[in-house]
């Protein structure tokens, strides 16, 4: 349990650092890979805007597996468990609706510019 909490803490620190990095990249232009956190059966953020050609990574922080599916069938991840992740690179601009087929009430949007 300690190990798990430790990992969770590390992941949170990582995300906090990522937030800073993302902010920093606005001026530096260094493309840091944006992440969507899955926790308590929610995608956070619920809507994420990225530039075309960016890979988005979903990180599962629940004790329950999740997956990530595009409602147009563009991509479908396998199920991934606690502390595992999945990435997809968005090449074309558009608005992508994302859901978890294990828990279909979980929905989020990726806007690609």
């Amino acid at each position, binding site marked *: *349990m300690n190990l*798990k909490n430790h990992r969770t803490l590390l992941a949170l620190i990582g995300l906090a650092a990522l937030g800073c990095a993302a902010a920093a990249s606005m001026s530096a232009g260094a493309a840091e890979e944006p992440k969507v956190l899955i926790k*308590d*059966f*929610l995608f956070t953020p619920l809507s994420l805007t990225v530039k075309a050609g960016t890979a988005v990574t979903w990180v599962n922080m*629940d*004790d*329950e*597996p999740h*997956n990530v599916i595009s*409602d147009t069938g563009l991509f*479908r*991840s*396998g*199920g*991934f*468990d*606690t502390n595992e992740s999945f990435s997809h690179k968005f090449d074309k601009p558009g608005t992508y*609706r994302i*859901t978890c*087929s*294990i*828990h*279909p*009430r979980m*929905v989020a949007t990726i806007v690609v510019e």
Partner: protein
Amino acid sequence: MSNEKLPLSRRNALKCMAYGGAGTLFALSGGVFTPIDLAMARAYDESKPLGTPLFVQISDTHIGFNKEANPDVGGTLGQTIDIVNGMPQQPALIIHTGDITHLSKPAEFDLAQQLLSRLRVTELHTVPGEHDTTDATVTEYFNRFGNASDNRGYYSFDHAGVHFLALVNVLQFKPGGLGTLGPDQLAWVAADLKGRSPSTPIVVFAHMPLWTIYEPWGWGTGDADQLLGLLRRFGSVTVLNGHIHQIVQKVEGNVTFHTARSTAYPQPVAGEGPGPGPLKVAAGVLPKMLGVTSVNLVKHPRSLMLNDTALA
């Protein structure tokens, strides 16, 4: 307010609760759901329960799960199998209502099949849960269990005059929605039931509940009403589901709905906490929240009797 029509008296309900640990008996007789007087049931030799064992429902074995809520799901499935193998009169068949595995991994399916092969009863019927179909290509379940249905997932069979419908409601999720049967499957059900006598007892099983228990957690099936429309003319319909890892039951007309316990880990009651994830309970409490459902066929009057047994 259909609940008010239930012939479930407070006295009998309390009796059922009092014997909850040993199993709760409900009989479906002539389409009316009647709790058996358990004191009377107890007067029978306990090794000879009412009716003939028809089948046992195992659900949500989640092989591959290894978190704090139950680090040994193989062990609790083993205890479940011991209970079934220890039944003095063996049921004719076993039904697994899905989430055989936790993550649809080949090694999880292989281990699950290896563990389940220890059942004395060899006839096993399955439907997939959403945890069995999370592999990117949705092939692992069908590679192993697809034969019964020509890889559609849904199929029917008969045993001892009872007609069984195995349905799939985990493959066509709509974002934000409930489980879905879909028009193709519903059309197949309509054709399958056509011409069958209304006196044929029907058992329907699928992973997700076929009635809405709690929509915010997706505990229901969006187009289940169309299915129930097809079943309404039958005098005895028993709908068995898993998915929610706890017993919930209700009666609507001639239809009895019942969800089974998991053999792996409990989940919170609807709406308690952020979502339907594994519920961590004290080690001593866990076996009381895991178990199986056995279903007996009573010939006179012709009815099915459900009996839930916890691991402890």
